[in-house]
């Protein structure tokens, strides 16, 4: 090896060493925050197909912090995420959501939204499967300290969703406590093909809950109501949307509450809009759709504990513009 080659080799080695040494130093200098793990202590078990994390993209973090804090009792921890403000919300000490402040584009016609992250054992493999079945990547897989590896995509209908492989495993698979997420619903114009897509990516069992009822219509044809299940638990629904011109497909996430009626009334008093007034849903639960003060859609749902056997929640007076108490 000539002298010149030795010199170049040495320089390359020094550069590599300096590069390796610089990242921890820089990270320490900037106080790199670490997201809390999804579960502590670690479970080291993932339930593929379960929606295990939720992020809110909002233009006004302070307003939504106050709103969800007052409505659900969430507390927050600021994560100082670089250029953007990101806080993690806790329900009774359990991390349940992240709130990320993002400006609204000026083109109008857009709203903040909740984004659900679906658990998977292998984000890269799931991403690959999703892209092969017509999805589009919004954010390629990234590793986040303690959190895990996650990515964001749009499904074939253009609906945004996330996927995550949690470093510490998923939270215990128990019925959500009040203040925690209990249900996810995808409203879409192509329910059956969307079910096929999510089944291909996450391996769901798909159940057709079609009522075969004349009442189960939207005014423009029969509804499709599918259930996505994994590990023998219901994880999400896929509901058909009418009027393709008027409405956009969307995931909506639901928080468990003691009473959908009380939660809707309280949310309204806190500045939310009631999009769908509380109503009886399948098998005894009550459900309502709300838009938070920033306009992000979310749902509340009361669900009788199976071991308590109480299906009928309290029914305060009607709230909101649609529906009403049964």
């Amino acid at each position, binding site marked *: 090896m000539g002298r010149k080659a030795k*010199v170049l080799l040495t*320089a390359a080695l*020094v550069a590599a*060493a*300096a590069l390796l040494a610089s990242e921890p130093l820089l990270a320490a200098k*900037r106080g*790199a*925050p670490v997201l809390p793990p999804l579960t*502590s*202590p670690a479970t080291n078990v993932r*339930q593929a197909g379960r929606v295990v994390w939720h992020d809110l*993209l909002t233009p006004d973090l302070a307003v939504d912090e106050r709103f969800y804090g007052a409505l659900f009792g969430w507390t927050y921890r600021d*994560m100082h*995420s*670089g250029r*953007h403000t*990101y806080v993690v919300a806790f329900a009774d*000490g359990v991390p349940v959501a992240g709130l990320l402040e993002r400006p609204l584009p000026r083109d109008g*016609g*857009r709203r903040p*939204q909740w984004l659900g992250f679906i658990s998977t054992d292998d984000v890269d493999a799931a991403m690959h499967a999703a892209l092969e079945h017509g999805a589009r990547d919004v954010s390629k897989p990234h590793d*986040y300290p303690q959190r895990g590896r996650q990515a964001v995509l749009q499904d074939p209908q253009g609906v945004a969703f996330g996927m995550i492989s949690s470093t510490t*495993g*998923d*939270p*215990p*698979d*128990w019925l*959500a*406590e009040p203040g925690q997420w209990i*249900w996810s*619903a995808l*409203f879409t114009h192509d329910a059956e093909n969307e*079910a*096929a897509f999510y089944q291909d990516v996450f391996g769901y069992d*798909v*159940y*057709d809950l*079609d*009522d075969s009822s004349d*009442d*189960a219509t*939207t005014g423009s044809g029969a509804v499709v109501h*599918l*259930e996505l*299940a994994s*590990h023998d*638990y*219901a994880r999400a629904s896929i*509901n058909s949307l009418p009027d393709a011109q008027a*409405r956009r497909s*969307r995931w909506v996430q639901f928080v468990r509450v003691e009473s959908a009626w009380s939660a809707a009334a309280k949310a309204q008093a806190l500045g939310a809009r009631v999009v769908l007034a509380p109503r009886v*849903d*399948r*098998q005894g*639960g009550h459900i309502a759709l709300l838009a938070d003060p920033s306009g992000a859609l979310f749902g509340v*749902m009361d669900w009788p504990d199976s*071991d*308590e*056997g109480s299906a009928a929640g309290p029914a305060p007076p009607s709230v909101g513009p649609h529906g009403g108490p049964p």
Partner: protein
Amino acid sequence: MTARAPLRLCSLLLAGAAMAALLGLTGCATDGGYGYGYDYDYVGPEYVGPDVGFDSGFWGPDYYIGPGYFPGPYGERGHDHDHDHDHPHFHPYRPAPSGRPPPSLPHGFPHGGGVPRAGGGFHGRGVGPHH
């Protein structure tokens, strides 16, 4: 000539270190300060969602959204929803096996006393974030 060789080596070393520092700083700038090279900024403003037009309402009286089966005293209302026998038609998805009722939400563990069926890593009451 012998005096210039160490000088060249020194220059190269300095250049290498400078390059490394530059790369490191670049990484810092692009990740926006979020550790391990990434800002928590996975979507641009365009992914703040579209207005979905839900406000006008479209739910008929039996437009259901929630889980389809309740395992408690309402469990008898769960039934086989596989319609392939009565109305055979092509599903783009693979329907769950005939005769299997749709599952419900997880049980009310821990306070409800149910037993979590999924996630073999859990070891019963007393383990988990609530304790």
